[in-house]
């Protein structure tokens, strides 16, 4: 089951650039939350702060409170523990090129020392079915490299890989921006099904996509969160003038 996230007073820096300024945001459990905004507004930095990937960059740092359920991810847990509970799907599919499809999907378990064959087999099948890729690859699981799949298949394999470690939250940083329309619609269907079991945060440049998959939407601009509300309200009756300008295409 998913878990809700409460962000309070989150600030983030790259070197001396203040990329996120005092973000406050409640992300409800088992819902999809979309983050929209022009390039460079801090959306990606924000999701990377939710699984502490932000700090893997030596010049980056973050302050503030991010509560996942009962725990403060910056105080009560190590980055490694957090990343096991918060899965991430990146903008471009990033399969492990030396691994088969099978090994790619269970890499999160295997690289953490998990060895039980029966459970690994079951996990691969479950995750690939969840990611709607099972039927396409079930005959080549161990024969083909993960990098030999098409872009859209690779991205679904990356989603399966993230799901295989059984996370509570799934972060998706523009998961469909490098994909064709057919693959994009498959990923969107997937998000729709997955949110019954996971809390999903999706960054997107595509406002129709936000409208299609997310119950709530946040609008970011220049490192600040301008507005957060139900997707319906953001797109039909935004409170802030800047949100309205953005969604009507006047800038960005």
């Amino acid at each position: 089951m998913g878990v809700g996230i409460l962000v309070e007073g989150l600030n983030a820096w790259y070197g001396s650039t203040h990329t996120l300024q005092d973000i406050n945001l409640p992300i409800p459990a088992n819902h999809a939350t979309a983050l929209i905004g022009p390039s460079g507004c801090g959306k990606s930095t924000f999701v990377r702060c939710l699984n502490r990937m932000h700090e893997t960059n030596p010049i980056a740092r973050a302050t503030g409170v991010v509560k996942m359920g009962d725990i403060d991810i910056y105080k009560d847990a190590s980055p490694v523990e957090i990343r096991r509970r918060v899965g991430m799907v990146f903008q471009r599919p990033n399969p492990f090129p030396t691994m088969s499809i099978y090994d790619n999907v269970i890499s999160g378990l295997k690289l953490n020392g998990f060895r039980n064959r029966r459970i690994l087999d079951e996990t691969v099948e479950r995750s690939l079915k969840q990611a709607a890729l099972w039927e396409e690859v079930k005959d080549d699981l161990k024969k083909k490299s993960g990098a030999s799949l098409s872009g859209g298949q690779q991205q679904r394999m990356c989603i399966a890989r993230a799901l295989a470690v059984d996370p509570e939250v799934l972060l998706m940083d523009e998961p469909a921006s490098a994909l064709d329309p057919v693959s994009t619609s498959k990923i969107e269907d997937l998000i729709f099904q997955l949110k019954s079991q996971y809390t999903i945060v999706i960054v997107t440049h595509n406002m129709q996509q936000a409208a299609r998959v997310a119950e709530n939407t946040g609008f970011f601009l220049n490192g600040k969160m301008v507005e957060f509300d139900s997707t319906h309200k953001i797109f039909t009756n935004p409170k802030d003038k800047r949100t309205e300008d953005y969604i009507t295409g006047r800038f960005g």
Partner: protein
Amino acid sequence: MSTQPISNQRPPLDLQTRSMRLNTARRNATNYFISALSVLATVLVILPLIAILFYLIYKGASSLNFAFFTHIPAPVGESGGGMANSIVGSGIILLVASLMGIPIGIAAGVYLAEFGRGKPLATAVRFTADVLNGVPSIVMGISIYSLIVLQQKHFSALAGGVALAIMMVPTITRTTEEMLGTVPHAIREAALGLGVPKWRTAISVSLRTASPGIITGCMLAFARVAGETAPLLFTAFGNQFWSFKLNEPIAALPLQIYVYAISPYDEWHRLAWAGSLVLIVLIMVSVTLVRIFANRGVLKGGS
């Protein structure tokens, strides 16, 4: 002013104008010239290699026989004999060198590429490796002589192995660092994002992805030290008899070739040629074998 309809069609591209024809001719000529230069350069690089190999076969193949691979050198004045002990000795020294040099070299490369970015220690290690790479092999021999041989008060296979290992390290370290640098950052992020610790990511993801290049680097280092003579002169020393012990002087192909080549006997000269041929063939065979084994189990269809 009368309004003229603006045509949005470009004028048709005429490939038959004089200047176009001249341009095409010039481009074709340049293309041909540069291609010819590349082919010439390639031939110039390969020619000495082929020439050396053929000259060795011409000079050495006639002295190769079964005894060469099964017998130890014959005493002065007797004919026949072989280099069996040198072949085995070289194998032992190179095994010792590889067992020490490859793990240390790769580990240092992993530190430079994955953990040491921008740290003063990494800069120092990188600089040291580059300097070490330029140290003449005779100097390496003398250093190990004073560090190990003088302390132990005898020459040994171990000392020879250590000398060669130190010569292997800088090449392996720098290749490992460079090959890890070509692994896309996105792949590391994928692993970190799954909750894999950084050390595990470095070993199981980055190193594994870069392994073909790193294996090539190890092979280059191996092939380079396999023919080294100078570092072995004061360390392994050479031996006219069988020896399998690490703490005793041991025979090695380059040393035996050296001894035979500077001798006044024609038969020994021929044996030196045969030894050189065997040395080169053995290096080629071992490098090829490693490649074949390293390529096993690599999945097809990956990029």
